[in-house]
């Protein structure tokens, strides 16, 4: 028994979890957990503040990586085998439809959650100093999510895949100067063919996921380095200013007092450098509002993980990912629709390819990236930022309306057809 205890001790190397020291060491001494702080603020654990959307998005990404690797075992990225493999996954492979559906629905859910997460961060004003750069990383992660969805769409090599990519890459070719070359580089040819499929496959399974993981790591790291999640500071009880424990940050006017280093004390970096820390300072009162990550934060994360995984599994049991007919370059389905999250873009493109397909999305992305640097208002309190909230709400509503129009109000020939009117497509 002693040997087992010794082995266990050599692995975990921490005090028992019944002690405060053990609870801290669980986080500090574990490579997988040390991205967490040892203690978290109570308000940051409130479901109604974050809706745990960041966690849920990350868990969805983990589902996507896992199911994606499983699907790779049965997929050959060249036509027409790619489509045959889809049929195999649908009818022959054990649990094939289930895995493919999980991958599909998790991808859709991830697009939704990334978007909602962005809305939460905006409405809580969390992109403001010192978190500006993490917002930029977040926008890049949103673009990567859409890029992964787009490249994944071609892989089944069915009609939807083929025409979504034909339309999508042609939108890109409207970009000034380099558009045509970029399209050719992406497709590895002039039309969507086998060269395009292998390139999209490489992007989907290697290039984009690597970038995604890289930026996700930076995103998480920056949360900690920016002082943890933002909090509704105006709701907290005011702290006595003299109680601030900002070590090394003397008043702006006072000369810096130097203290001789003591031999019997170790100093952290924050104690020997001068200047104010970039993150929010913490008062002793606020320190009392913090709880240990173990078990409070970890318990909530585990719940979020289980709800996410079981939710996606449940949906995949009852709804299977669709698969259309084999890609047919000669026959465009009518109406030819992109995946729903690109239907807003397709609606814009139906009015003007250059303005709607290149200029408008480019401006939207630039505006999103510029938000934290353009919005100089330091307050995160909603009543202080009515303009910002109005503008962002308009942005969200316009996007949603465009997607709803593209999804439900467009019929054959992209004509305006309300969903309650049934249209029989004309003979071709």
């Amino acid at each position, binding site marked *: 028994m002693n040997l087992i205890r010794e082995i266990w001790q050599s692995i975990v190397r921490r005090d028992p979890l019944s002690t405060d020291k053990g609870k801290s060491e669980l986080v500090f001494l574990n490579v997988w957990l040390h991205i967490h702080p040892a203690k978290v603020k109570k308000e940051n654990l409130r479901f109604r503040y974050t809706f745990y959307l960041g966690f849920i998005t990350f868990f969805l990404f983990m589902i996507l990586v896992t199911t994606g690797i499983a699907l790779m075992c049965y997929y050959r990225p060249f036509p027409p085998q790619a489509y045959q493999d889809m049929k195999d996954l649908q009818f022959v492979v054990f649990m094939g439809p289930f895995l493919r559906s999980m991958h599909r629905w998790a991808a859709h859910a991830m697009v939704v959650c990334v978007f909602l997460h962005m809305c939460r961060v905006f409405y809580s004003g969390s992109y403001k100093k010192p978190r500006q750069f993490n917002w930029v990383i977040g926008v890049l992660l949103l673009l990567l999510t859409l890029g992964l969805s787009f490249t994944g769409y071609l892989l089944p090599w069915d009609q939807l895949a083929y*025409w979504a990519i*034909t*339309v999508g890459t*042609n*939108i890109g070719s409207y970009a000034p100067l380099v558009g045509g070359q970029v399209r*050719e*580089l992406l497709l*590895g*040819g*002039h*039309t969507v*063919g*086998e*060269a395009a499929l292998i390139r999209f496959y490489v992007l989907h399974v290697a290039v984009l996921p690597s970038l995604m993981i890289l930026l996700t790591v930076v995103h998480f790291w920056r949360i900690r380095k920016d002082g943890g999640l933002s909090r509704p500071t105006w709701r907290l009880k005011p702290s006595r200013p003299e109680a601030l424990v900002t070590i090394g940050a003397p008043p702006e006017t006072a000369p810096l007092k130097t203290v001789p280093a003591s031999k019997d004390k170790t100093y952290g970096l924050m104690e020997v450098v001068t200047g104010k820390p970039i993150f929010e300072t913490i008062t002793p009162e606020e320190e009392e509002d913090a709880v240990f990550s173990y078990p409070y934060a970890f318990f909530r994360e585990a719940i979020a993980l289980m709800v996410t995984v079981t939710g996606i599994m449940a949906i995949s049991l009852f709804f299977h990912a669709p698969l259309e007919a084999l890609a047919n*370059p*000669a*026959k*465009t*389905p*009518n*109406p*030819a629709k992109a995946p729903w999250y690109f239907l807003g873009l*397709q609606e814009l*493109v*139906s*009015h*003007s*390819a*250059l303005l709607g*397909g290149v200029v408008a999305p480019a401006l939207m992305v630039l505006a999103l990236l510029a938000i934290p640097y353009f919005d100089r208002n330091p307050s995160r309190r909603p009543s202080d930022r009515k303009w910002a909230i109005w503008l962002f709400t308009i942005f969200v509503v316009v996007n949603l309306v465009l997607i709803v129009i593209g999804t439900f109000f467009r019929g*054959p*020939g*992209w*004509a305006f057809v309300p969903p309650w009117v049934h249209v029989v497509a*004309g003979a*071709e």
Partner: protein
Amino acid sequence: MNRRDFFSWGTAGMVALGSGVAVSLGAVVRFLVPSVFYEPPQTFKIGNPADFPFGPPTFLADEKIFVFRDREKGFAVASAVCTHLGCTVGYFQSDQRFHCPCHGSVFAANGAVQHGPAPKALNWFEVTMTRDGQLRVDKDKVVPSNYRLMV
């Protein structure tokens, strides 16, 4: 080595390093441009003139072209690729126009844009007669919409 030499060699070194990186990046981009395209040829034979009826155009699915044959004017070949975003248009005999299913562009019988987001008219391709009496289409040669081959 004196200070001047140090900076001269240093600058030369940085320039060499920079050019090396630039050349490497260029090579990476060039690597991604295929040297061989395994795609259908742009010039191809479509068959004997007698294979094509008068009246409604014949749609060749693999080549994505419409072959028009008119009793008085002769042969003309139109592209079936919408100039907007590359969907395949359909020719409707009922109104004698091309309709694109993707974003609703409509083209007149001569290929001109009548409606919708398409920025320019459908392409017409050169069609010629080969020595063995077959029709040959060259998709690289775009011709005016009134181009006709009399047989």
